[in-house]
Structure formats: structure tokens, C-alpha cells
């Protein structure tokens, strides 16, 4: 069995990732001030996803690991999106009904 698995990353890379994460946190806070209406949640989600991928790829070694680990992460997220999408379809397409009594 080749000893490829214990990937050791340089200290600098960890530092760079950490600093960019803090930077993105500033961006999240900064972008939250402008009111884009319902778009706000979407933008916040996008920035948070960028930060999450950074943590997952480098800190959690997903980049250097066997691809099945990444599939686990993505499967979880995918079925969450499916759940959200179908419930949102239902909630959005309900026809509100008023009582005429």
C-alpha cells in the first residue's frame, strides 16, 4: 500500500486559508449592510458556502483524500436541497383562501 495518504500540508497554506476565511467573514458582514431584499439570504448563503468549501478542502483534507469522502459531503447537501426545493414548491404554490362569512 503506497504511503500516499498521509498528506502533510505546509504551514503557510494553513495560514493563508485561515486569513482568507477571516477576510470572507468581513465580506459577509460588509455585504449584509446593503438591503437587496430577499436576495440577502442568497448572498449570505453563497459567501458562507465559499468559506465552507475552503474549510472542507484544506482543513479537512478533502482535496487530498479519496473522492468517496467528498461524495458523502455532497450527497448530504444535495438531499437537503431536494428537501428544501420540494417543500418550497408546496409552500409557494398554495392558494390562500379567505373566509367569506
Amino acid at each position, binding site marked *: 500500500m503506497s504511503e500516499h495518504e498521509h498528506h502533510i500540508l505546509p504551514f503557510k497554506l494553513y495560514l493563508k486559508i485561515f486569513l482568507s476565511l477571516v477576510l470572507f467573514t468581513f465580506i459577509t458582514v460588509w455585504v449584509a449592510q446593503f438591503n437587496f431584499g430577499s436576495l440577502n439570504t442568497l448572498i449570505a448563503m453563497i459567501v458562507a458556502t465559499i468559506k465552507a468549501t475552503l474549510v472542507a478542502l484544506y482543513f479537512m483534507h478533502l482535496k487530498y483524500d479519496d473522492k*468517496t469522502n467528498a461524495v458523502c459531503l455532497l*450527497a*448530504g447537501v444535495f*438531499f437537503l436541497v*431536494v*428537501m428544501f426545493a*420540494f*417543500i418550497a*414548491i*408546496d*409552500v*409557494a*404554490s*398554495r*392558494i390562500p383562501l379567505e373566509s367569506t362569512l
Partner: protein
Amino acid sequence: MSYAAGSNYLNHEKGLWSWLTTLDHKRIGIMYMISVFTFFFIGGVFAMLMRLELFDPGPLFAAQTYNQMMTYHGAIMTFMVIIPGIPAFIGNFTLPLLIGAKDVAFPRVNLLSWYCLMVGAAISFATLFFAGVDTGWTFYTPYSIQTSGTVLMVLGAFVMGFSSILTGLNFIVTVHKLRAPGMTFFRMPLMVWALYSTAVIQVLATPVLAITLLLLAFEKMFGVGIFDPNLGGDPVMFQHFFWFYSHPAVYIMILPAMGIISELITTFSRKTIFGYRAIAFSSIGIAAVSFFVWGHHMFVSGQSSFAGIIFSFITMLVGVPTAIKTFNWVATMYRGSIQLKSPMLYALGFLFLFTIGGVTGIMLATLAADVHFHDTYFVVAHFHYVMVGGTLMAIMGGVYYWLPKMFGKMYNEFGAQLSFLFIFCGFNITFFPQFLLGSAGMPRRYHEYLPEFTSLNKISSIGAWTIGFGFLIALAVIIHCILKGEKAPQNPWGGKTLEWTHADSPPIHENFATTPVVEAGPYEYGR
């Protein structure tokens, strides 16, 4: 590790403590067998009492008592019998043997999963001593947050959920990492494909049940107002969260049963499976699509009609792979050499009942028909045909098939076939009339019904007690076999999978003396 002659996993260590702290997947499988059979009989007693009440329209038990019996029958049978049933009991015992491994990936997690089931079951049964739960196994709000006992039962189901997650996790890693050399994915027996796709559903669906039950408990204790309409919550949201788990859960119940049926039909027709890849891919296909269809439980529940139409369409799609599997099994029997031993009888019983269950499922997936049939006895008959007719028949077939391997003893063939006769006939007498009751409009969960439904309910009750009697005979046959069955050969059925060809019955502690190397597919009959 050298092995004295005649030493096997049963007499490898002695004493109850060696069983309660065992890490051997085979022993954990036997412990699961004992728990699942016990819970099955408790759930069965509730079913018999329910049919006693429904024998005639008049009240026998108080309304509250019947509603509690209905709830416990539902909760026990789903959470404690049929979800852990095949994956944990038969799956635990056979998976490492089928793929040529020494044990599952994480033996200690496997033992923890059994304790989660027992602790969760203890908590759920504790509700019997307090007020008792009468919400139905679905815990729909807002009734479930107004009545008593829900929090304890929900906590029990929460803990049992972990048992399912840990088993699923174990099986996924085992199948990926511990296959014998030479066993590629397409040389794995179809039972392993079925257990693998079940494990995927268990891992992806059960956490959502965990958070739903947690939110329900918080709703009851702190009134968080997410599902409580008086506080702005939406009961239909609870139904979405609940069924997002519970529909994939019914595929957790049926997929392993399909795996067993693939094994039984090939071995007892002594013929290679027809359409191996079709069955393997439809297992995975069903597992994936099962997460898109839960809304067909909610066509009339206040869900928007647009969503209902989408769910109905996708439910039709998930019907296709199931139909393909059934046709493949029948095609396997073509020009085979069929031996009617009792495992094969149960497999044929499965095909008979599951086909009826399947076609009625399509009726329920049709929007206009479901509006009439929803929450009537038509639905009760459908899911019993698919669960009892499907999964339970497969469990009984699997038990008789692997009993010689588990205990090294043969069961009494006549007794087994007799119990099959009672169970199969009793089943049809019980649940076929319920289709008619349902289409006539008798709602479910009624402890008293209108006089016009009396005759069919009488027949159904008689059928129910026949099933009960059949299972008693089956229990006697199994106990007799374990205690006094005569010695079973290593391969009584002529199976071609690893546990028959390489492991002896009962297998040694490490399953295989030398790790088997696999060169060909699992069903090499007539090659």
C-alpha cells in the same frame, strides 16, 4: 488464529457477558434476531387485540385504549421490527460472509447500534406505564402536542434512529472497504447491493427524522411554535419533515427484502439471476428516487395541488424499477430447476403478495383515486400487503434459508410449510377484504364503524388470528430447530455465494479459515 475442530462463533466464548459485549457481527445478528422477534410478538399481540375490537361494530375496549393499541402496533412494528428487521438481523449476520470479510468495518459501533435499539425501545415502552400514547405512529401535530406521553415516545424513537444510522454507516464502509480480493462491485451478490442501497437511505433519511422528533419534543415542552398552528406554525410542515424520512423508511423496509428474494429465487431455481445489472441498478435507483416522492402521503392534507401533481408524477417513476425487479425474478424462474422448500415458498408468497401490493400502490399514486382512498382501509390493506406480504415474507424466507448457516442445524420442513400455509392464507383473508372496506369508504383508525362494514371486518378479524396462529407455529419450528435440529451440512441448498461455498455452518469466529478469492459472479449456475 488456529481453530480447534468444531469451534465456531457460538461456542467461541461462553456466558451472557461474552454475548452482551461481543464484537462479532454474527453474534450481534443473533442478538438482533432475539430483540426483533420479541418486539414482533408484542406488536402482534396489539394487532390481535385491535382485530378483537373490530370484530363487531360495538365498543369492546374504551376508545382511548384502542387508539393506544393502534399507536403501539404501528410504532413497534415500524421502528422496532421492520426497520431494524432485515438490515440489522439478517444483514449483520450475512453481509461480511457474503463479501468474504472477517467482520463489519466498526464492530464496536455495531454493538452500540444494538444498545441504541434496546435503550430506545425501553424508553418507548416506558410510555405504557405513564399515560400511554394515542397519536398514531405518525405523531401528527397539533394533536400530538396536545395529548400526553408524546415526548417520551418521541425520545425513544430518536434513540432508535441512531441504531438505524449506525447500522447504515457500518454497512456502507464495509461494502466499500472490506470486500474480498477479486470481488468487484458487479460480482457482489444482489443481497449486498440491496443492503448497500438500504444503508444509503438509512444514513441520508434518519437524521431528518431525528431533528423532526427533536423539534416535536421542543414543541411539546417549550411551545417553540414551528408546528403549532396557534403559535403561527404549520402542521403541514411537520408532515413534510416527517414523510421526508418516512417514505424513504418504507424503502429501507422493502429493499433488503428484495435482496433476500433475489438470493432465494436464484438458489432454489438453481439458475443464474436474470438481469443482474438491472436489479442492482434498480436497487440504487429506488434508493435515490425514494427521496423525491414523499408528498404522495399528503395529496389531501393541505399541500398545494401543484406539489401534489409533481409528487404523483415522480411516484409513478419510482414504480418502474420496482416492477422491473418483479419481472426479473419471474424471468429467473424460467427454465430453472425449482425446488419447493419453505424458503422458496416464502419467496413465491412474496412475489404473489408484493405484486398485489405494488399494483394497489400505483392506484394510490393516482391523484384522483388517492383523494378517495387516502386514510381509508384501502391504504391499510396496501401497506400491509407490501410490508407484511413483502418484508415479513422475505424475513421468514431469509430466516429459514440462513438458519442452517446460523446454528448449523436443519429446521423441520413440514412444520415450516404448515406455518407458511396459515400465514399466507390468513394474510389474504385478513387484508383482501380491507381493500373493499377501503373503497367503500371505511376510514382507518376507527375503533367503532358503521354496521354496513361488519361482515368484511368479521372476515378480516378471523384472518388476523390465523396469521397469529401461523406465526406461533413458525416460532415453535425455529426454537425447535435451534435447540434440537439435526446437524446441517455446509451447503444444504447448493448456494453459490461465499457463505455457502467457503464458510462452514455455523461459521468460525473469523468467518473464513483463509480469505476467499473471488473470480466470478455470485450465481454461477449452469456456467
